[in-house]
């Protein structure tokens, strides 16, 4: 062990390695106030009791601190999720205009641009709807003629 650190085996021999140090008396010259060691145990006891109380309240404060720290971001996240769910998934919005709204538009002569193709489609829809209506009526009339055994040619002659 001595070889690793290149120290002599008799390194403790102060006479040989530190003659000046070997000559002087080992004395503790540090002064201590009178009665210091008599009163110290009770001072330390009080501080230990105080530190126990402080430790408990410190733990409580630390718990509250983390609770508040956690509560704020969690609340914030919940609000974002709530609004996100409500506004990113739109509910069924009734886009159809009511009759009153249509009247207002017409009265105010709002310039509504209608594409020609849209107009043709609307007319065709209207015609097919009307012809369906008339078809229903025709069918009813024919049923009447058949049921009452009325000759169609005689009706035409009367006209």
């Amino acid at each position, binding site marked *: 062990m001595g070889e690793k650190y290149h120290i002599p085996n008799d390194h403790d021999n102060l006479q040989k390695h530190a003659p000046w140090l070997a000559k*002087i008396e080992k004395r503790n010259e540090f002064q201590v106030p009178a009665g210091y*060691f008599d009163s110290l145990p009770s001072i330390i006891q009080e501080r230990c009791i105080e530190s126990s109380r402080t430790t408990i309240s410190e733990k409580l404060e630390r718990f509250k601190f983390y609770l508040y720290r956690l509560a704020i971001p969690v609340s914030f996240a919940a609000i974002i999720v709530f609004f996100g769910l409500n506004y990113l998934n739109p509910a069924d919005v009734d886009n159809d205009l009511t009759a009153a709204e249509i009247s207002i538009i017409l009265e105010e002569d709002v310039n509504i641009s209608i594409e020609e193709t849209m107009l043709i489609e609307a007319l065709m829809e209207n015609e097919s709807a009307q012809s369906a209506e008339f078809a229903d009526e025709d069918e009813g009339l024919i049923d009447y003629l058949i049921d009452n055994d009325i000759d169609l040619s005689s009706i035409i002659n009367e006209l």
Partner: protein
Amino acid sequence: MSEYTDKELIEQFANPDTSSYAFNLLVRKYQERLYFHIRKIVIDHDDADDVLQNVFIKVFQHLGKFREDSNLYTWLYRIATNESLTFLKKKRAKYFLPMVDVENQLSSAIGSGVGYSGDEIQLKLQKAILKLPEKQRIVFNMKYYDEIKYEAMSKILNTSVGALKASYHHAVKKIESFVKDD
């Protein structure tokens, strides 16, 4: 001073009914040794008092968890040493002082004679010791003044016995050299 062994003190401390009494006895048993160990590191009495009280508060908080596989005395000394070194580090940081200036301050404190009653030779020795690096100073004090065995010192300072022997040898040589140069 105390009739109880360390083991008995620890057992009594574990019992809530005798905890305060046991701790009181423990303080009385070790206060002087720990105080002077700390005092030699931090020099000033008020600083040593602060550090010592902090040491015992830590002991109080952790004694319940103390593993009896290590010596109580070694454990106390280790806490005291670490607290003293931490104190010096904080002092340097607080005043933005390099190590040398802290040591000069400590040297001046001894030289002022306040709290120190040594004659010229003892004063010379203390100033020489203060010129040693921090850890080396602690090793020297523990070996030279407290006559702590290297094996115990090794556990306290968490350093190998060989390194401690080397440290002490070099410390002794340096002190001789400082004194001759002075």
